[in-house]
């Protein structure tokens, strides 16, 4: 019998062989050689990591215990492969076109890139995967112990061997699963290694089977007799259990992280599924071919009480065939290692991508621009994740004591992982499925699985016996294994029925009730109609690209000069003498970058896509273009607003400037007017005073007359200065008003009498004194000044033969209106608008006024809160004065 040392040496040798194969495959793949590495044969063989140690050892044990029920575990995947390969094709297409890295990534991506969902699936996968890894450790340990029992040296210790096995597997997974970071997460080396292991385990099982049939039973005939004689041969189908198990294994085949890894992530060609659709069921058939014979013979020849899970090892050993036993051991070892390695890789990808990296990124200050190299951090996260997952498996094994039968641990894991199925299938085929629905379904199914299967299965450690038997808080309808009072069911069937049906119901109901986000809707459309949207490869394949078209397009975007320069430089870089570069992928990528600087990344991608034709424009591309356009629109909107604001400011400045120029001109004109008005009387005064001084022979009449002229002109000067001062005070607004109470009638009385007194001219003033009994509260002197001005204007300018001035007053709702209308020829229409301006002279003004009177009136009325205006159409000159009955401070 082989000693333990030999066994360890063989194991190490086998592992070194695997390393060699994986390493060589990686080298070949990196060198672009070895197309067979990506063949459908390798793909199909890699799928057979479905057959773990559980299949290798457990199938026989299961057959020995429960008869033909073990077949269900093979029937599920077979049914999926044969009847649902189109569904798998959709899964693969979705996975590849969205560059999905794991099943958690797929679910999260489908439901609007929700990281919450990714974390849920990751937790579920880790919890479901941990017992499964423990199962592999257990099988390796058990097979070791078979050899150890026979080893005379007695060196074997179970605990330490499990530890070393776990550590060794972790190292292998780390070495080959995290060698580098590939965008597509493909690992040619590992896939090739597990394909080799698939061959080894199949060969080992077939060899043992052949030995049993022809070496022990003595041929096919006697073997059939033995089977007929044993109980296993009897079809004893429990429909509930069979249906449940077939369904579970089918679900697990699709949902298991390691299956997803090899089937979707590592897939290099969709066409491989066609081969796998018949080749993988064939593999399953071959590997299950000798299960029943081995079980029957094992039950026959092995002593009572021997573990049927290990018949594959113990039967050859008992027949003294050490080398066959060794081969069998290697087969089992292969099954376990390949499963553990791929599972660890898949789980570590999920854990690092969805748990560790988000946390790490958020601790980096959340500055979404981690531009530095994060590869080493991702790799480190994966390596640590693998170690932690292996440690979890190890501790689960130590906790559970390794006592449970292999098959039942596997089924518990299956039932857990199957909870992903509704969200996965719903996501692929139902556009109405939402993130909320997926979360609800997963949560419900996951909790039920824990409550009804995982916790009861772990014995009394985590769930008290009382809960198991009479429900929590004595609520019997909540008993974990008899929910809602439905008793007598097989625990597994019970769990699968309740958890998956409630999971599906929660998923559907929550999906129908919730409203998907735009991103979710977009992803839903892309997933469900994945075959309508062609796969958009990221790298450009420019085989059909027309450099000239690209050149024309680039010219339009960058302008002729820069476009020409860019293309020239690229052509030189390619070393060709042609003026246009070949549309190599590298060139196209640089062009895309160049263009995206001008039109945005999405637009650039879509435009090149149109010309190169390698990919049509997807909905996502269009949406990205729309987003960019919206941003551009918003930006240009801001620019427009800014430009409008500038225009407004410029107009205001222009207006202010015009106004200032006007004011400046007005000032010049005013000074010039004032100068003129001052110089004119001074000219007369100077001339006559010089005449009187220099002329001796003036007559007394002449002397008197010239002195009178000097006097009049001096008065005129004084009046002018008075008016100027008055106007300046009024215009500056610093005038202080002296508000008093009186009637309009008495104000008018005073104005009329003071104007008409001391003048030789005649003017008949007509008034309706009864209507003038209006009480006023205002500055009476200022108002009188206005009246005097108007009356004296009529006196001076009314050109009628018998000048008349009609003054009429009436009260109009809080205001008094006084009209002054004379019977002269009035003011010509062209001059009416200027009569209130300073120095306005209408016609030949010879009456000695400086033209400031009406300007002063206008200022006064404004101060008093009223107004004065010219009243056209009254025959003669007509002015209207409008005044509030009571002076209001605010009116100023």
């Amino acid at each position: 019998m082989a000693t333990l040392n030999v066994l360890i040496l063989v194991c190490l040798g086998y592992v070194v062989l695997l390393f060699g194969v994986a390493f060589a495959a990686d080298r070949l793949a990196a060198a672009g050689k070895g197309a067979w590495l990506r063949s459908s044969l390798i793909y199909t063989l890699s799928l057979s990591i479905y057959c773990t140690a559980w299949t290798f050892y457990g199938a026989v044990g299961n057959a020995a215990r429960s008869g033909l029920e073990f077949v269900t575990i093979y029937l599920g995947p077979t049914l999926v492969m044969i009847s649902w390969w189109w569904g798998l094709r959709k899964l693969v297409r979705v996975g590849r076109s969205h560059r999905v890295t794991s099943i958690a990534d797929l679910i999260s991506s489908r439901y609007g890139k929700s990281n919450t969902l990714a974390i849920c699936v990751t937790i579920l996968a880790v919890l479901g995967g941990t017992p499964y890894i423990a199962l592999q450790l257990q099988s390796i340990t058990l097979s070791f112990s078979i050899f150890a029992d026979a080893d005379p040296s007695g060196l074997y210790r179970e605990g330490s061997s499990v530890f070393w096995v776990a550590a060794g597997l972790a190292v292998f997974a780390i070495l080959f699963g995290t060698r580098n970071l590939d965008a597509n997460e493909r690992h040619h080396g590992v896939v090739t290694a597990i394909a080799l292991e698939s061959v080894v385990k199949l060969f080992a099982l077939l060899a043992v089977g052949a030995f049993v049939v022809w070496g022990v039973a003595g041929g096919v005939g006697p073997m059939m007799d033995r089977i007929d004689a044993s109980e296993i041969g009897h079809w004893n189908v429990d429909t509930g259990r069979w249906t449940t198990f077939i369904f579970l294994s089918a679900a697990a085949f699709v949902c298991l992280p390691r299956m997803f890894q090899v089937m979707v992530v590592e897939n290099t060609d969709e066409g491989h599924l066609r081969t796998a659709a018949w080749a993988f069921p064939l593999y399953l058939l071959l590997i299950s071919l000798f299960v029943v014979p081995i079980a029957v013979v094992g039950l026959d020849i092995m002593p009572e009480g021997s573990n049927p899970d290990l018949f594959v090892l113990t039967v050859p050993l008992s027949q003294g065939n050490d080398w066959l036993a060794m081969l069998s051991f290697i087969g089992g070892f292969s099954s376990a290692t390949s499963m553990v390695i791929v599972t660890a890789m898949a789980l570590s990808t999920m854990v690092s991508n969805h748990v560790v990296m988000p946390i790490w990124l958020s601790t980096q200050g959340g500055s979404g621009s981690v531009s530095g190299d994060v590869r080493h951090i991702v790799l480190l996260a994966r390596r640590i994740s693998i170690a932690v997952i292996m440690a979890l498996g190890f501790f689960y094994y130590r906790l559970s004591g390794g006592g449970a039968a292999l098959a039942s641990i596997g089924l518990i894991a299956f039932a857990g992982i199957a909870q992903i199925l509704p969200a996965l299938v719903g996501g692929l085929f139902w556009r109405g499925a939402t993130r909320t629905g997926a979360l609800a379904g997963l949560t419900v199914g996951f909790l039920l699985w824990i409550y009804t299967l995982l916790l009861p299965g772990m014995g009394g450690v985590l769930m008290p016996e009382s809960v198991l038997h009479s429900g929590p808080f004595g609520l019997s309808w909540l008993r974990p294994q008899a929910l809602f009072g439905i008793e007598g069911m097989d625990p597994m069937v019970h769990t699968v029925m309740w958890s998956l049906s409630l999971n599906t119901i929660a998923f559907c109901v929550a999906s129908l009730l919730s409203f998907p986000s735009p991103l979710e809707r977009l992803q839903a459309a892309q997933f469900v109609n994945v075959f309508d949207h062609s796969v958009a490869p990221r790298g450009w394949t420019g085989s059909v690209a027309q450099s000239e078209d690209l050149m024309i397009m680039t010219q339009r975007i960058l302008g002729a000069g820069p476009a020409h320069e860019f293309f020239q430089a690229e052509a030189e870089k390619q070393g060709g003498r042609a003026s246009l570069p070949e549309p190599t992928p590298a060139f196209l990528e640089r062009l895309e970058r160049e263009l995206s600087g001008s039109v945005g990344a999405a637009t650039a991608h879509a435009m090149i896509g149109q010309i190169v034709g390698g990919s049509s424009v997807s909905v996502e591309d269009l949406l990205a273009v729309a987003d960019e356009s919206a941003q551009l629109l918003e930006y240009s909107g801001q620019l427009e607003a800014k430009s409008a604001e500038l225009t407004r400011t410029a107009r205001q400045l222009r207006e202010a400037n015009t106004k200032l120029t006007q004011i400046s001109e007005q000032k010049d004109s005013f000074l010039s007017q004032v100068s003129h008005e001052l110089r004119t009387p001074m000219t007369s005064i100077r001339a006559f005073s010089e005449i009187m001084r220099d002329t001796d022979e003036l007559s007394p009449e002449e002397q008197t007359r010239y002195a009178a002229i000097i006097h009049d002109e001096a008065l005129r000067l004084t009046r002018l200065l008075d008016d100027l001062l008055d106007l300046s005070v009024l215009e500056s607004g610093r005038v202080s008003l002296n508000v008093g109470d009186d009637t309009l009638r008495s104000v008018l009385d005073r104005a009329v009498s003071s104007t008409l007194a001391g003048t030789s001219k005649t003017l008949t003033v007509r008034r309706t004194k009864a209507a003038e009994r209006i009480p006023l509260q205002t500055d009476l002197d200022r108002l009188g000044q206005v009246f005097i001005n108007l009356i004296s204007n009529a006196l001076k300018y009314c050109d009628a033969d018998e000048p008349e001035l009609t003054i009429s007053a009436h009260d109009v709702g809080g205001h008094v209106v006084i009209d002054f209308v004379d019977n002269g020829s009035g003011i010509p229409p062209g001059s009416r608008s200027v009569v209130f301006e300073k120095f306005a002279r209408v016609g030949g003004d010879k009456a000695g006024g400086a033209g400031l009177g009406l300007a002063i009136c206008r200022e006064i009325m404004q101060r008093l809160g009223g107004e004065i205006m010219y009243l056209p159409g009254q025959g003669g000159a007509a002015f209207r004065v409008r005044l509030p009955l009571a002076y209001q401070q605010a009116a100023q």
Partner: protein
Amino acid sequence: MSRKVLLIEDEPNIAEAIRFLLTREGWQVETHAEGADALQVIRVASPDLLILDVMLPGKSGMEILRDLRELEDMQGLPVLMLTARGQTRDREMAENAGVSRFMTKPFSNSEMLTAVRDLHAQATQS
């Protein structure tokens, strides 16, 4: 020999003062106070000297001078212009229009008489 001066000035007191001064000098003085018909009045009066105010009702002295210089037979008429505004711009405008002498109000009587004498002397010499 009779010397005739035409004075176009709308301020009656100023016109009276100038008339007094020039009459004593031996001038025959005619006055007019309107701008609008000034050109006709000048033609009719046919003076030896024209004294012209700038600010006139109807038509400004500047315009009258400009139109006057357009006429063939009025090229040599000496024109003394009076203004109360006294801005350099007005003086330039007057010189461009062909003024003979430009005076700002108020002026001294001797200043006025000197100007009139000079202008007349120049006119008779040429």
